[in-house]
Each structure stands twice: as C-alpha cells, then as structure tokens.
C-alpha cells in the first residue's frame, strides 16, 4: 500500500488522475486513499510533484505497516 504525508500535499489531484484503479480521491480538503483497491503500482508516487507519497511493497493495511515499522512484522510468504 501507499502512504500519503498530508503535510506537504498540495492537493493537486495528480495522484488520483493517474491511479488506474481509483484508489485515491480528493475528498474535502485532503487526498483519501482506499487501500482495499490499491494495486501497489506506484504511479502516484512517480507523478506527485510534492514528493509526499511512499510505496510500501507487500504491505496491505495500516495496521500491518505499523508492526512492520517497529520491526516486529511477521515474515510473509513469498518475501
């Protein structure tokens, strides 16, 4: 999945306009990410003019990202 650092986002909708699966959308005053739709293609990361999107390959949820961040993530099959 990807994470968006909202501080630094200039709300230009570049990420959502290149996302092939509509997994990012401008809602209200911030970019919302729908991890269940995300296919980890990384196009949004490349196009972002503010450089605020990070791709975490193989991570499926925010909770999993957190455990991985602390170094306690269980090893997954195929890794």
């Amino acid at each position, binding site marked *: 999945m990807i994470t968006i650092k909202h501080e630094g986002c*200039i*709300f*230009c*909708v*570049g990420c*959502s*306009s*290149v*996302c*092939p699966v*509509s997994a990012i*959308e*401008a*809602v*209200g*005053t911030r970019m919302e990410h729908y991890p269940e739709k995300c296919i980890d293609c990384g*196009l949004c*990361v*490349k*196009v*972002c*003019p*503010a*450089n605020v999107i990070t791709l975490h390959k193989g991570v499926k949820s925010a909770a999993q990202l957190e455990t991985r961040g602390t170094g306690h993530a269980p090893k997954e099959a195929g890794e």
Partner: protein
Amino acid sequence: MNYDHDVIVIGGGPAGSTFSRYCAGAGMDVLIVDKRKEIGVPVRCGEGLGAREVVSQGLELPKKCISAEIVGAKVVAPNGKEIVWKDKQTTGWVLERKFFDKWLCELAVDKGAKVHTYTRATELIREDGKIAGVKLSHGGRDSYEVRAPLVVSAEGMESFMARAAGFKTVHSLYDVDTCYQYEMKPYDHQNLIELYFGNALAPRGYVWIFPKSDRKANVGIGIGGNLMNAKKNGGIPGADPKVLLDKFISTHPQLKDSSTLIDFGGVISVGAPLDEFVKDNFMVIGTAAKQVDPIHGGGIALAMETSVMAADTVIEAFRKKDFSRAGLMPYEKKWKDTLGKKMAKRLLLRKVMEKFSDDDLDYIFNAITERDLNSVMDGNFAGPVAKVVAGRPQLLKVLGALVS
C-alpha cells in the same frame, strides 16, 4: 420515468459553468454539483487565458477576475537567447482563477442553473441498464440520489464518474506534465508570458513566469510525468519539479530575493483527447475529456469553446427528447472536425519538441523569428521547418514528422 432535473453537471469549473449557462439559458433545468467547498478553490493552474474565446462569447471579465493583462510572450533558449513575440495569439490575461471560476459559475446561476457545493458524486445510478442520475454526498454526511436523463462530466483531471461510465480517462505518466508553482513578489514584469526552455532546467517541459498584479508573478515549472523521480526506464534520477524550480529561482537575478506568497501544484494533461466523448445519457467535456492544449497545457479556453458545442447539441437533444449516444454525437463530431484537428497538430509538435537537445533548441531559437513562431502555433509548420533543416539537415529526421 420521473427526473429531478434535465441535466446534472459534475464540476463547476470553466467547462461545467459555461455549459450550464447555455443550457439553463435555453430553458433547461440544470443542476451543477462541485465537490469543493468553494468554487474556484484551490487554484491549481498558471491562470493564463487568451482573450479570443471570452470575446467570442460576448463576455466582459470583471476587474477582480483579471490580475494582469498579457501583451505578448518571451521564449528563452537554453543559451539565454530570447525571442519576444507579440500578436493576437499572445494577448490575454493572467486571471485570478478563484474569482474567475466563481464569476463564470454565477453567470450560470443567473440563467437559472442550480449549484450545490461540497457535494461529491459517488456513484452513477443505472436504471434498466441506462444511466439515469447520480448518487451524491454533501460534506460526507447526507447521501441522496438525483435523477436526470443526462449526466455531464466536467470533472477535470480526476474524472471519476466518467471512469464509472466507461471512459478511459486515467492519465498515463507520459501524457501528463507534473507541475509546481509559486506566486512570488516582487517581480517587475513587462506583461509578457515568459517561457524558459532547457533539458537541464525542465526536462520535457519549461519554466514559466506569468505576470500578475502589484509586482507579483506566478513562477512555475512543468516536467514530463514519466521522467519524475524515475530511476529507470529512461527517467532522470532526482527530476523533481520543486527542486528544479527552486534551482531556477536561486539563479534568477530578480527572483532569487523575492518572497513566495502561495505554493501550488498540479498535473496537466498534455496527451491526446479521449477517443469518444459521448455515450447514452452521458457526456464528457473539458479537461475530463483531456481537451487540453498539449503545448502549453492550457484548458480554460478550450473548455469554454467546447462547452458551446456541447450545449448546442444538448439543447437540440432536449427538444427532441433524445439523449442517446446518437443524439449527443453532433458535439463529438464537431469537436473532432474543428478543435480536434488543431490539437492533433499541437500534440505532434509536442512529441517532436521533446526530442530536441539543448543544442538543437539553441540552434532553432537562433534560426527562427517571431513570425515563424506564429505560423507554428497556427499549425503551419512547413516554412519554419524548411528554414531550420536548411541549416541543420540532421534535424530532418525529427522535424520530418511535422511536414509529412
């Protein structure tokens, strides 16, 4: 079938508002929904607009919408050589977009269109397999359904409902420019649009300075989306619009000491328009249909011109009660026969231009005149191409595409 409106327009930008103004003026019941809290905000654009389309629609811009008048353009080669170019094509305004968009939208309201802000279209409603309206959400709180025999996507770059209707509106990295821009002050401009070219300065793009009121200017950069932060596939490592723009500013004699007043950014479509603009009970207009000039990325004038064509067709379809694909087709056909042909030439020019090295650019800027630039922008490439190729025959391979 019971409908709430004759047409639902998604997006209250220049395309949606202009289209709605004409349709409401012809007696149609029009609903515009815009997901932003305020029409025209945030601004994501250089704010330049040529005078022609505004004049031809009989509009007079209120003072608050105009930040500065443009009297011409200055293009600067990688080696610093400048060509100043003044003519009808380069006259216009740098707008205050937030006021301009709101004013255009209010004109539609004056004609009877209804507008709902902070209202996001979340889903298309289909009945008996046909599009019959949209599900809306106001401020993320109230969800409701609104029905109409025609839904128009004027959604801009995101164009989610157009995607839902089956249009291929997703942008490829190659066909977008990714941009960063500051509003800066002070900058003593000469009411010229300034464009700086160079592969190191702005790979497959340029740096622009657009004059604004009170010694201000929009200073921005656009670079090829496929080159961004790319470590492979021919990309340029570290190509980052903000980094490159900051670098340009730090070496610019005047701007290096200026302040930034606004940070904004955007992604501009610089590719081909959609293959089709209409389906049964659905239509796409403006940037949502990728109707954007591939050379300068400008979309406002095209959106306004397109909207007139679309509205003419829709008003006729309304009279005949025929919102089928066939009934909406005159708009698509007319666009392709007129603006489409013009934009195809611009796209070709963009694709040729991105092959030039800095040395080629320096040579070309030296060889051509203001008049040549005019014919190029009019789509008459033969004269200028002959001139360049005469002095640098090796460019024929690249430039040949423009005259074959």
